[in-house]
């Protein structure tokens, strides 16, 4: 492995998502590969969560900026669609971090892709219902708890 590849991978993986800044590109499984060539130039491959994710350009810029600031002489960021991203690619800590921010995480990999009910992240009740499949960002839907009356967001399953 060329020198610096481990560092480049770690720095790229730690770049925060602009819409869910408590999650990193590594947590989200958006970072696919990091390669460093003999001259020290870095190639980073990202994959979008949704075809039209407007944050992808911003993420690519952030990765470029971060790696250049760390002293890598050249950075190229490419995107790759295949294999398609799904919520099964979320890293081990992503679900906990979502829950900590009161966003109901998608069901685990071995569960059915569409939750019949979600636990309210505010009061823990299971008496919740979906208000809209589509929330403030492409990856979220909007729910409401019938027990405490509060709305909450759900990082919806995509498979």
């Amino acid at each position, binding site marked *: 492995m060329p020198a610096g590849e481990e560092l480049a991978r770690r720095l790229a993986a730690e770049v925060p998502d602009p819409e869910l800044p408590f999650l990193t590109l590594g947590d989200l499984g958006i970072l696919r590969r990091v390669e460093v060539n003999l001259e020290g130039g870095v190639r980073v491959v990202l994959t979008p969560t*949704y*075809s*039209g994710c407007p944050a992808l350009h911003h993420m690519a810029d952030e990765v470029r900026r971060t790696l250049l600031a760390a002293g890598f002489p050249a950075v190229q960021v490419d995107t790759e669609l*295949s294999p*398609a991203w799904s919520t099964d690619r979320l890293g081990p800590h992503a679900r906990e971090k979502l829950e900590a921010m009161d966003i109901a995480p998608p069901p685990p990999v071995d569960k059915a892709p569409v939750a019949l009910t979600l636990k309210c992240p505010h009061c823990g009740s299971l008496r919740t219902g979906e*208000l809209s499949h*589509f929330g403030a960002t492409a990856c979220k839907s909007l729910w409401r708890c019938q027990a405490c009356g509060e709305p909450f967001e759900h990082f919806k399953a995509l*498979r």
Partner: protein
Amino acid sequence: MTAGVAGLSVVDLREVALGLGDDCLVLSHRLAEWTTHAPELEEEMALANLALDLLGQARSLLTLAGEADGRDEDQLAYWRDDRDFRNLLLLEQPNGDFAVTMTRQVLFSTFQELLYRGMAAGTEPRLAAIAAKGVMEARYHVEHARLWVQRLGRGTEESHRRMGQALDLLWPYTQELFKPTESWSRAADQGAVPPLSSIEEPWRHSIESLMVDSGLEIPGFPAWQSGGRLGRHSEHLGHLLAEMQHLHRSHPNASW
């Protein structure tokens, strides 16, 4: 003619990607027209989300379509006139009321999901990659539109009446969905895309069962409109493009 991957000619790949890309671009623009006009806030976000998914798919497809002759996605989106667009006529029809918009959505998204599912398993890797991503999104679009069709079909007398009108209005345009161009037929022979005849039956079954559930009737008259895939459009597309392309043409290469 140069052979592309999987024996698909560059020209046929371009035509196929252009047709599908224009479908996404034109419907995306129509859905975006609802922004600030939707019946409720949640629905406004939903329609904008659908539009965004379609815009993303359009970008990938138009980028692929433009590769053959060195044109990028923006050149294809902003610098072609209506006769050069290859989208289905169904998608350029005006939004009408909410019943028309949702009927159009269910007719198209059901078709698109089936088409993408076939293409994702196809022999052209770039088309397959775009489809594999898009099919996950299309599934949500179908689900959303079906719920609205049921709700409106079985809602009030007025919503039921409007759904019936919407279906009568748009039904003629459904024939074109299953009418392959020569490029499509050749691409299907190569296994890059599904033959349209193979998705017509599942589409019909899905739409018919939805209409039964929704208390609506499929019109008795035949679908007969077509021409969009060959560049023969209704007058509506010109107006849509005038709005979509105006800024870019007035200020080439503008960015913000």
